[in-house]
């Protein structure tokens, strides 16, 4: 039983490590910090897996854990939040090669995306970066699929407007 848990946990790690790391990275804009946060996310998943309650949607749970960890981080480091860093011309660093391989257009979009609410940023990242379906996002947010679809549509329109204004 314990062995099965280990196996399942490692499979989940292999399948979602990149996505969770990316999710954390877009939240904190720091590679090392995102690495720590992703690891912490999986450790919390393990704590859930050791519990008696079966986990029906581990992927959703992972995003929810990572989201909560990011909120904690925002609270602690409010002055260094993504928005402020972006506004002051901060370029995300990969901690190894100086500047991450992102073209200027993407960086620009990231900066513009910071003008959106955090919820809308999440929606855009999940839908277009992580390629999650509206149904999967609805599971993470515990909302109706239709509601999520409408919110995604509005968020992308808002981002387009932000892109046009500058």
């Amino acid at each position, binding site marked *: 039983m314990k062995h099965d848990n280990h196996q399942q946990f490692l499979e989940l790690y292999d399948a979602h490590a990149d996505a969770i790391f990316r999710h954390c990275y877009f939240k904190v804009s720091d590679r090392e910090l995102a690495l720590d946060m992703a690891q912490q996310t999986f450790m919390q998943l*393990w704590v859930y897996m050791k519990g008696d309650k079966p986990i029906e949607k581990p992927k959703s749970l992972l995003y929810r854990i990572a989201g909560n960890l990011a909120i904690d981080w925002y609270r602690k480091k409010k002055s260094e939040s993504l928005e402020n860093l972006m506004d002051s011309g901060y370029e995300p660093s990969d901690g190894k090669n100086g500047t991450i391989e992102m073209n200027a257009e*993407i960086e620009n979009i990231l900066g513009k995306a910071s003008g959106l609410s955090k919820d809308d940023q999440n929606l*855009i990242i999940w839908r277009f*970066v992580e390629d999650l379906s509206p149904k999967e996002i609805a599971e993470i947010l515990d909302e109706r699929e239709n509601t999520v679809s409408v919110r995604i549509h509005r968020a*992308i329109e808002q981002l387009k407007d932000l892109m046009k204004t500058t």
Partner: protein
Amino acid sequence: MKEELPTILRSFSKVRLTAQEKGTMKKNLESQIGLPSPANKWHTIFWSHQMKVAYGVLFITLSFGSSVVAASGQSLPGDLLYAVKTQVSEKLERVFAASTPDDRAQFETRLVARRFEEAEKLAEGSALEDGKKEMAKTQIERQIEKAELALSKIKHEEPAIESTSMMMQSFSATTEPAPDTSARKIANDDRDDYSRDRKNSDDENDNNREKRKDHEERKKFDLDEVLEKHKDIAKKLDIKKSGRSGWDD
């Protein structure tokens, strides 16, 4: 913007862990989920099998007095305290005496001898005829199975004669005719030389003596020897020596 916004956003997926980062994180996680946390570690020790057995003994000792546990050591199959002997005292012995497969096999073999000795004591009186025969037989057969299982888990390794001083040790220690091996012949021919060598290798001798003693101790509890030693009572109890040549022929 030449490209559609969603398409550009999708290119964000280029951000990913390097293979090294992914491997390192996986290793970290594996070590964290594999090892109990300090708090869990104490919890694990506290409720480990060994401790549970120890709690059992402590409970019985406190409840009935240590004399009960001590008295159970002399009990025989069918006695009131026999269960205390086999289910408490011996389990505790097993936990602490058998830390390696080798020790475990030796311990289980020793218990086979103990079971036979109990049956022999029963046979001295008329207990075997009083319906305790089946009980004693079951206990012995069960213990033989345990010993065979424990023996199957270890590789029998005859300790090699590791040095010339060891050969001298065995030469002077025994008066029994030794097997005619080439090593033995060398030992005979060069006895004087070896004696000189031995002076200079006291430490090595001590080490080898220990190993030999250990081996002899192990042989003493060889299951075949135990079965052979107690063959009379085994025949009386109609215990078959399955898969072994000898007394059921």
